[in-house]
Structures are given as C-alpha cells and as structure tokens.
C-alpha cells in the first residue's frame, strides 16, 4: 500500500514535469514562428517607383553638335528597333553609343548606385510580348546578382509602343 502511494506520487511529479516541458515547448515554437514580411509592401512600391523613374529619366544624347535630350524610355524604344536591323551598328545611338549598350550601361549604373548600395538585388527584363524574346541577353542584374530562387517583388509590366517593332514590355524585380 505504501509502495503504491509512493509510486502514485512519483507519477504525479512526472506528469507535472511533462506538462511544464510541453508548455515551454509551445512557447519556444511560438517565438520561432516566422512573422509575415511587412516590408513586402514597401519593396513592391520601390520596384514600381524605381522602374517608373528610370524610364522617365532624361538623358543627354547629343552628338555631332546637335543637342538631343531623350527619356530613357525612348532610348529603350530605339534599342528595340535596333534589334531587328541586319546591321545593328547602323541603328539609333545615344551620344555615339548604340542605344542598347547605352541603356544597359546607364540603367545598370543607376540601379547599382541605389538598389545595389542599399543591399538589394534586382533583375531588369525587357521582352517582346508576342515572341517572348528578351531584349537584353544577359539580363541587366546587379553586381550582387539577380533574383533566381529568391522571393522577389515585381514592378508590374510597363508596356510601351515603339515606332517600328510593336510593343515591348519592361519589368523590374527586386529582392533581398
């Protein structure tokens, strides 16, 4: 009878210890649970405003003494038109540099000096929606790389008509 009593008490103690351990486990599990990323909204807005501003930016494409200011959007449109020329070097230029090279250089530089410095990666893609052909190969990405296999936020598609090659669509992806 006494042995049984002692055993019952020990069982009681064990139950208490198990209950407290379970309680602590739940607490730890709750604290380690991933919180939803509240920065996703800001990142998405950043992607949109970055691409919108980039395409609106005015650049000086003067050459041969002729003053010529264009928006980067127009330089991109010229780049699209150059793609289908049999001799791309005979196409549109900006400050004596082929439009595609000029755009890739300036866009990459501006994005590296902002998004790159802020520790963000990006991918800038331009394609012809009908053929899915990319205008830039390789894509314009940051010095730290693109957004492969990462959770990324999109600026949304920015379609623009061009004079000779139809519509081209730009999109900027930003990730951490």
């Amino acid at each position: 009878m006494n042995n049984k009593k002692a055993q019952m008490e020990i069982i009681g103690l064990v139950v208490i210890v198990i209950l407290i351990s379970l309680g602590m486990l739940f607490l730890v599990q709750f604290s380690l649970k991933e919180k939803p990323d509240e920065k996703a909204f800001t990142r998405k807005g950043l992607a949109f405003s970055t691409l919108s501003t980039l395409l609106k930016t005015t650049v000086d494409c003067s050459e041969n003494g002729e003053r010529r200011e264009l928006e980067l959007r127009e330089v991109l449109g010229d780049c699209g038109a150059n793609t289908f020329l049999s001799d791309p070097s005979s196409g549109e230029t900006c400050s004596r540099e082929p439009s595609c090279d000029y755009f890739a250089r300036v866009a990459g530089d501006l994005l590296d000096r902002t998004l790159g410095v802020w520790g963000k990666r990006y991918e800038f893609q331009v394609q012809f929606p009908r053929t899915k052909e990319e205008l830039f190969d390789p894509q314009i990405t940051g010095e730290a790389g693109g957004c492969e296999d990462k959770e990324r936020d999109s600026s949304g598609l920015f379609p623009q008509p061009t004079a000779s090659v139809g519509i081209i669509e730009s999109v900027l992806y930003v990730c951490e």
Partner: protein
Amino acid sequence: MPVSLLTMAPPTNLSFVPQKKAQIHMTETIAVLFIFFILILFGLIFYAQFQKSAFKEKAEELLQKRATETMLKVLFLPELACSERSLSEDNCFELAKVQAVVDRKLFEGGTGVPTEIDQEKRDYYFSIFSYATIKVQQLSVDAADENDESYVLYDHPLLKFTKSEPTFFIVALKEAPDTYHFASLDVTVYS
C-alpha cells in the same frame, strides 16, 4: 486500577509509528511542493527572458513601421509633389519646390530670427516627422561626372538615440518644364 511495575510491559515503538508516518508524509508533500515551486520559478525566469527579447523585437518592428509611415508622408507632401494644373504625379518631386524647402528651411521653421509663426511651423512639421532626417539625392546619369546633388529637407535627429532605421525610395525630380532626374529619397528615423 493499580499496575504492577514488575508486570508492566516495556513500551514498544508501535505507539509512535502513526506520528512518524505523518511526518514522512508531510516531508514528502513539502518536497513535492518545493520542487513544484522551483519549476514554476524556472518557468517564470524563462518567460521573463522571452518577454525581454519579444519586447525588443516589437520595438524594432514599431520603429520600422514609423520609418515606412514617415516615408509615405514625405512622398505625398503637397509641398514637394509634382503637380500640373491640379493633377499630381506619383513618386515625383518638383526640383523648384525641393530647392525652396532647403533654402528657406521650410520644415524647420525658417531662417533668421524665429517668430511665433516659425515656431508653429516647426511644431507642425515635427508633429508629422518627429525625430528624423529626410534627404533627397539627385544622381547624375554619368557616375564619372560626379554631379550628384544632395538636398537635406529635414534634419531633426534625437540627440542620444539608441536606434535608427533608414529607409530608401526612388523618386523622379522634375525640373521644369519636362526634364526628369533620377533621385533617391533617404528617410532615417530615430528612437
């Protein structure tokens, strides 16, 4: 009834057993309670530590939220926003307005001898931005030019801050009539 000392049986321990049993039982109960309270104490210590780190995390979260809110307020300020014929443009500041804000220290109550109106203006913008630093950096298209321009719109850091949270955004800086510059908006909040 008289008892013979010779025939009286020696006292045995049987009369003390119930008391001993009770004492042992009491000791067991006290030991159990003691261990129980020790476990509760460990639980409380652990919970206190957890609450401490949770509180720190919450404070960081609130600071980030404040940084995002301040950024959004700046982006939609009519004192800076691009507007043409009462139509406003998103993610765009007018260069002339930015320069005016900087030259006249509009968000900091003006230059020169502070008047009551200046103090009101200072209080008004402080109620919007609190302790923060707001800068617009115009980037030149050609990095080699080194023609980047920086405009400090509001500079009110907390003197002994423990934490600061910078946030960044891209805005277009419009120079009349149709020239757009690529610019970054840096907002740092302090706590």
